[in-house]
């Protein structure tokens, strides 16, 4: 069954139509990827799902329940929708550890008074979160050596990983990753791909991803939706999408088909 169902979504800014009648489904416990050229509306779609943009039309169903515009981003986070950002959105003034702990925010309850005293519930809760973050996330993502460092001082690849860690701390049902490997070197990409696969396998989390790196997309996705000019042009398993002429056209217009095949086909890249 689908954990996330997008139907007939339309969004426009002034005269610009960012999304037109977009519909697709994210099957539960899959890695679903949205691809499409720049400006196709991928990030706008993410923003609609996380509640930043209010679509003018259409609706989103999450775990079978509608997600109307009245449900604001914080509430959506609490419901289990986590995401990372295209251009890293970590809190630069904080350490890695604090950034990750922030992810656990919605699952914590302690109030202001006990926080002021740092006694009783607040203390227990903070210690518990720390333990969980350490044992489940920091170890898993292999970032224990940098936990005390301010994120601003970290290299790009590690920052992306910290952002992933923060999203995991939200204990999401659906993890939305906006270009998780952009700007990484091959080794970092491979690490990230492995983490994403593990997240689906071991944690049982549905992953919804926007990514340009076709090698990785074709490698790890279970399901792909292709977006162009704000419209879904096709949807399906990687192999189908790869050979869909619509997709090929959308990507490169009418230019060199071979280079395009190479780009869409991971094997081609290896060859």
């Amino acid at each position, binding site marked *: 069954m689908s954990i996330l169902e997008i139907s007939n979504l339309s969004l426009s*800014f002034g005269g610009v139509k960012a999304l037109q009648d977009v519909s697709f489904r994210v099957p539960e416990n899959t890695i679903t990827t949205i691809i499409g050229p720049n400006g196709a509306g991928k*990030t706008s779609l993410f*923003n609609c799902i996380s509640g*930043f943009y209010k679509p003018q039309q259409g609706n989103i169903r999450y775990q079978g329940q509608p997600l109307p515009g009245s449900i604001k981003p914080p509430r959506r986070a609490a419901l289990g929708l986590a995401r990372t*950002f295209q251009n890293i959105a970590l809190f630069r003034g904080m350490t890695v550890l604090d950034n990750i702990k922030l992810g656990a925010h919605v699952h914590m309850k302690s109030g202001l008074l006990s926080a002021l005293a740092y006694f009783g519930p607040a203390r227990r809760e903070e210690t518990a979160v720390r333990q969980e973050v350490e044992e489940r996330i920091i170890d898993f993502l292999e970032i224990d050596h940098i936990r005390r460092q301010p994120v601003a001082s970290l290299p790009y690849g590690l920052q992306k990983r910290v952002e992933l860690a923060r999203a995991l701390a939200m204990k999401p049902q659906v993890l939305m990753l906006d270009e998780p490997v952009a700007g990484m070197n091959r080794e970092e990409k491979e690490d990230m791909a492995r983490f994403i696969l593990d997240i689906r396998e071991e944690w049982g989390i549905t992953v919804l991803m926007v990514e340009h790196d076709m090698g990785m997309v074709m490698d790890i996705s279970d399901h792909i939706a292709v977006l162009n000019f704000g419209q879904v042009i096709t949807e399906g398993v990687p192999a189908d999408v790869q050979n869909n002429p619509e997709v090929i056209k959308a990507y490169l217009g009418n230019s060199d088909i071979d280079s395009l095949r190479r780009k869409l086909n991971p094997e081609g890249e290896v060859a």
Partner: protein
Amino acid sequence: MDWLFFGEISLAGLAMGGLYALIALGFVIIYKATRVINFAIGEIMMFAAYLFLAFAGGMELSPWIALPLAVIGGSILGGVIEKTMIRPMLGESPISVVMVTIGIGSILVGLVEFIWTADPQLLPSFLPREPVFIGPLYLAPKIAYGFLIGSALLIIYLLYFRFSRGGVALRATASDQAAAYSMGINVRRVFNMAWVFGSLAASLAGVLVAATGGLSPQFGIIGLSVLVVVIVGGLDSILGALVAGVFIGWLETVAGAYLGGEYRMPATFLVLAVILVIRPYGLFGTHEIERV
């Protein structure tokens, strides 16, 4: 109700509002081009007024020579402030930049006290003293002539921004800095120019206001009224500055006349609070779309 009285009060308020509009215009020019909210605008006005005092009172120049000198002095001050204290803050958070302007205000107050002491001062009177009647309505001559001079500059400004090259550069920078830069506009120069022009308007208004109300290092408090004007009108709207300037000037005066002087500030700040709640970007300001 005494309509004649109301008419006279309103007229006085509108004339004062004209000067507010001029100051607000200076404020908006700076904000539009550089996105800096200038809390020191009242102090820049004050400084120019003291310059006028020095030229006309101390050096005994003719007021009509002293006035342009003081205004030029004030605009140079604006340019210097931009170059030395605002430019290093380029790219910092708007909050930090605002606090820099608060600091600049404090420095200017200190400088003025240092040079001219904290004693209250009167500017040499240079405007005609014959009462002005508009129909049956009396208007204090200083205010009337102040309004005329202020409006003249205001019109020159509006024409300049509409038609001159510099004005186009300024407007281009205001609407999209990056695009203006790529079009070959020297954005840094535009920033500096905005401060110079903004301070020029404030300086002229400063001398005119001080000429009617007297001068002391606390003069800069008028910046608060201007702040109300630009928030109500919309920080980035010239039309807003003009409309709100005249309106706030009128409201302040009418509230003062009918309720008492202690109600002037609360009355205008009440309008400010209402605007903040119902139209946070001002009557004519643009609502900026947040980008994720």
